[in-house]
């Protein structure tokens, strides 16, 4: 702690913090541009000037940049000093000399950091009489729009894109007042975090392109706290909607998970909820039907039928629980693919019973040695990949600490550190976009990845299963990795369901546990594929195979499928065989898919945009998402549909459910492992100053004209019985609980930087602590390891290839595929083969092959992946062509044409 005097009053601040950080944390309004809490200081914009005095007697003082000056005990500084004020005002004036006169046609207007700072410094009148420099804009792909004239050269974009996110295709060009930020030529931004440029840029140079298509100002959009549904990490997001349409998705700060940044799949994947094909009314054999007649029909069906239910890893806990209650726990099936079901159960076992706790993303970022086993993180859990990219800097921070360079002094730290990186070892099937920060990358078949993991565990601990037939190379490599992990203070082991291999997950668990046993604070990060995979696993239920078996045996003739496409979960033939035998198929969903197309009755379910619920992320944190708009006429949350079905059967316990809290409470009471979920967010009765929390900002416009074409009377805002938020601007938006903040705004802070005002200290926890409840606590710290049958060494076979699942950021995930901006960037199906193997078959890039895999035969073009091990291949999972394939598996490959058609 250091005591500093600011404008005559004394404050306690963290010694060594920069003054800007300290002042903002104390609640002062000090303008800044180039500094970012996650990226540190570079002193590029000269905006945060303050005056520092040598002693209380010194009245002259000197101007310093607050972001570049550490707080020391006894420091006297002044924000209010006339000279400092004048300096800041003139800096803004200089920055604005080239700014175009186009705020009215700028999508940043109204939430622009530059506007806020200009108002804050008091610059109002342009005195500069000369001409403004201009640039031509670039096409940067479907996510980000560029308007380069608005640039104030703060360098935040390039520092984020290159230094923080590791992008290569974006840079700064030219010099002095002509610096240009963009690509060397027009083209799609390659980095999977490019969407953050819209939030990082303090002005309107980089803006959200999908928002621009259907534009609304920040003050006009209702917001709601939500959870990203496009992978298992549970990033916190804010959803914005106006006039019943989703407009955009923003990062919602969560200190322990996503921090300030989101991946592009999360940011731009929301479009599935507004696509024209979305289910909006009940369908009976594909034909629209009214709600009443559909329920009437279902009453007859349910009275006679033998029902089983299949849940979903992308539906809320409440919806799954409602289905479980409707059909009975023994007739409830999880709806996970066979291998995923095994893996999710295994991961829960690992996290619950082993000594290594699950890592939050913040902990992953602080890890100083990382071993990644079998997980292509930039594609399966992109935000974790970004965290590991920061973890690679931990060694550099240690160097900086030794040299007494503050960690926030970004350029100095990077200069001192050069290319020194923390040890990160990545063993996967194919190359990953994280390889550039890795100390070692190993391209192995999944069995070999597991063998490497077991060997490392053995090398760490000396105990645990021995790897049979280990080559000297493997043993030596395991020694190197084990040494790096043992030398670290906070080692991290990352694995997950991506390689679809049980041995890989067990190996990862063994490594982490061995490290724990050696007294290291090892953490485990297990990646799961979907937003509620872990929650569903914790709830427990039968496997999909059990469900198919029950239908086959005649024990069930009616299937209720909750928000799930069975074709993604099992082989096409098996699914079709099952569906053919059913008498009735009832599907609840919002997004069309092949299972829904076969439904006898389809009930339109609410998506994350209209529904509320609880999701459990990969670290076992239960978090609540809140709807941003009331569900339109016939759509309702899945749990409400299931309650209505239960009412048809006269099930009193379920019929009594009136609002979400009832379901959550029932779920928590029925399943002790989920007992914490009621605490995930405040319930519907929560009030701030006796009123609900408004979703709409106080200046939400058009209230009396928006619906005037339908009714001249202003309709009453829809009620929201399920949440503490209201669908209007009435209520109180001060001192909000951290899990129910609908938008970040503070007086004089209209931009996303307003989040500063919601944090205990800038870049720290939100006031009120981290949202969500951890449901999984690590077991007792005893010795434990898996003793499985360790896979034999991988040997290539003649004429056959070991086809492993690969993952695409855009394409493998079910829902985001339907979002228009992401649809422009979908992965195309191809068979990945190593070039040597392809050459042996006489195949060039793009040549057509026939792939025989189990009962399926696919015709695909070949793509050459030099990283793949000989004898292995890869197929991108989750594409319509590859749905439900039981990967990894041996497959025959036959050339159809040797050159591209």
């Amino acid at each position, binding site marked *: 702690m250091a005591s500093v005097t600011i404008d005559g009053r004394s404050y306690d601040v963290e010694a060594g913090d920069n003054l800007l950080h300290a002042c903002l944390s104390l609640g002062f309004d000090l303008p800044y541009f180039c500094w970012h809490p996650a990226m540190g200081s570079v002193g590029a914009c000269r905006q945060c000037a303050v005056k520092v005095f040598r002693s209380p007697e010194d009245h002259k003082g000197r101007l310093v940049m607050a972001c570049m000056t550490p707080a020391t005990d006894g420091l006297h500084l002044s924000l209010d000093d006339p000279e400092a004020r004048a300096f800041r005002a003139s800096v803004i004036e200089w920055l604005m000399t080239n700014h175009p006169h186009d705020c*009215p046609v700028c999508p940043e*207007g109204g939430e622009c950091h530059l506007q806020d700072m200009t108002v804050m410094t008091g610059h109002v009148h342009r005195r500069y009489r000369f*001409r403004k420099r201009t640039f031509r804009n670039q096409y940067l792909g479907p996510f980000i729009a560029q308007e380069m004239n608005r640039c104030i050269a703060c360098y935040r974009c390039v520092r984020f894109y290159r230094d923080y996110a590791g992008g290569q295709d974006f840079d700064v060009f030219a010099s002095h007042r002509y610096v240009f930020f963009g690509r060397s030529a027009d083209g799609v931004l390659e980095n999977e975090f490019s969407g953050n440029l819209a939030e990082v840029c303090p002005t309107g140079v980089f803006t959200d392109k999908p928002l621009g298509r*259907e534009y609304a100002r920040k003050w006009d959009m209702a917001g709601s706290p939500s959870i990203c549904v496009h992978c298992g990490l549970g990033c916190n997001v804010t959803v914005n909607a106006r*006039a019943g349409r989703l407009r955009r998705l923003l990062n919602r700060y969560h200190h322990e998970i996503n921090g300030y940044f989101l991946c592009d799949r999360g940011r731009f994947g929301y479009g599935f909820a507004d696509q024209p094909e979305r289910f909006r009314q009940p369908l009976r054999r594909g034909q629209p039907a009214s709600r009443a007649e559909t329920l009437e029909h279902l009453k007859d069906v349910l009275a006679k039928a033998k029902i089983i239910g299949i849940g979903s890893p992308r539906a809320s806990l409440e919806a799954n629980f409602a289905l479980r209650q409707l059909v009975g726990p023994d007739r409830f099936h999880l709806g996970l693919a066979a291998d995923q079901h095994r893996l999710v159960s295994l991961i829960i076992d690992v996290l619950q019973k082993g000594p290594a706790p699950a890592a939050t993303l913040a902990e992953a970022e602080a890890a100083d040695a990382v071993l990644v086993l079998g997980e292509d993180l930039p594609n399966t859990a992109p935000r974790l990949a970004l965290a590991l990219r920061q973890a690679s800097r931990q060694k550099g921070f240690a160097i900086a600490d030794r040299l007494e360079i503050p960690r926030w002094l970004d350029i100095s730290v990077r200069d001192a550190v050069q290319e020194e990186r923390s040890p990160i070892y990545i063993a996967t099937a194919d190359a990953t976009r994280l390889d550039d920060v890795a100390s070692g990358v190993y391209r192995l078949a999944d069995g070999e990845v597991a063998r490497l993991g077991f060997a490392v565990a053995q090398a760490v601990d000396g105990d645990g299963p021995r790897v049979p037939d280990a080559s000297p190379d493997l043993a030596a490599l395991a020694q190197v990795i084990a040494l790096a992990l043992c030398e670290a203070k906070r080692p991290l082991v990352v694995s997950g369901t991506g390689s679809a291999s049980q041995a890989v997950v067990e190996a990862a668990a063994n490594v982490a546990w061995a490290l724990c046993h050696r007294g290291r604070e090892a953490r485990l990060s297990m990646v799961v594929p979907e937003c509620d995979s872990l929650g569903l696993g914790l709830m427990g239920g039968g496997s999909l195979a059990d469900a198919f078996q029950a239908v086959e045996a005649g024990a069930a003739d009616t299937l209720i499928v909750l928000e799930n496409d069975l074709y993604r979960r099992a082989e096409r033939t098996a699914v079709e065989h099952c569906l053919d035998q059913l008498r009735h198929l009832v599907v609840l969903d919002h997004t069309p898919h092949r299972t829904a197309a076969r439904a006898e009755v389809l009930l339109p379910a609410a998506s994350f945009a209209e529904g509320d619920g609880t999701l459990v992320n990969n670290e076992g944190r239960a978090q609540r998402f809140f709807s941003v708009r009331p569900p339109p006429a016939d759509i309702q949350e899945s749990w409400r549909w299931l309650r209505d079905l239960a009412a048809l059967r006269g099930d009193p316990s379920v019929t009594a459910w009136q609002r979400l809290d009832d379901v959550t409470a029932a779920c928590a009471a029925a399943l002790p492992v989920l007992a914490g979920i009621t605490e995930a967010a405040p319930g519907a009765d929560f009030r701030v100053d006796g009123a609900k929390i408004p979703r709409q900002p106080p200046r939400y416009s058009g209230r009396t004209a928006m619906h005037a074409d339908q009714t001249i009377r202003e309709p009453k805002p829809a009620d929201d019985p399920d949440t503490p938020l209201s669908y209007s601007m009435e209520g109180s938006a001060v001192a909000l609980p951290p899990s129910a903040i609908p938008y970040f705004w503070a007086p004089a802070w209209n931009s996303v930087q307003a989040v500063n005002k919601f944090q205990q200290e800038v870049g720290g926890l939100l006031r009120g602590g981290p949202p969500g409840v951890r449901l999984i606590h690590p077991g007792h710290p005893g010795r434990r390891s898996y003793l499985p049958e360790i896979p034999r060494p991988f040997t290539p076979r003649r004429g056959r290839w070991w086809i492993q699942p690969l993952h695409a950021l855009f394409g493998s995930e079910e829902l985001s595929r339907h979002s228009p901006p992401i649809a422009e960037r979908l992965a195309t199906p191809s068979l990945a083969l190593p070039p040597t193997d392809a050459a042996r078959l006489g195949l060039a890039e793009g040549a057509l092959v026939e792939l025989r895999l189990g009962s399926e035969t696919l015709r695909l073009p070949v793509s050459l992946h030099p990283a793949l091990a000989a004898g292995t291949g890869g197929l991108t999972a989750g594409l319509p062509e590859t749905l439900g394939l039981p990967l990894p598996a041996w497959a025959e490959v036959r050339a159809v044409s040797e050159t591209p058609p």
Partner: protein
Amino acid sequence: MYSLLRTIWLIFLHLFHRRVTVEYPERKAYLAPRWRGRIILSRDPDGEERCVACYLCAVACPVDCIFLQKGELVGGRWYPQQFRINFSRCIFCGYCEEACPTYAIQLTPDFEMSEYDRHNLVYEKEDLLISGVGKYPGYSFYRVAGLAIPGKDKGQAENEEPPFDPKRLLP
């Protein structure tokens, strides 16, 4: 008695006063050019819509009776796809005109807009858009602002240099 006679006398004198009653609607009252009456959307001197759908009128409106949706023409020109004013709510305060950065929205000296049915007081864009410049001739926002639109490239707005080529090697 006296007061009665006095009243009758005063009434008689009124016969010789100037009449204040205007024969409305046969005769129209004089309205100053800055009278705050029926709201219109004007066009710029080139005949294009002035409104750029910046939403400032909507947010300035104290009764929230303006609703619009931004659209974008090929080439990047912003315009209102939809623009609705609910005159049954409008209080003719003129804040929208004051907030408008492009002189698009203007209040006109016209108050004759009574209706029997309140629905008819909801004016859509086609009811609001006129074909002239209104009170402010000569001003065109896009000639001043840096955004490029068809017919006005980068560097052709007020006070602008021609676009810089970032790959130029000269300093």
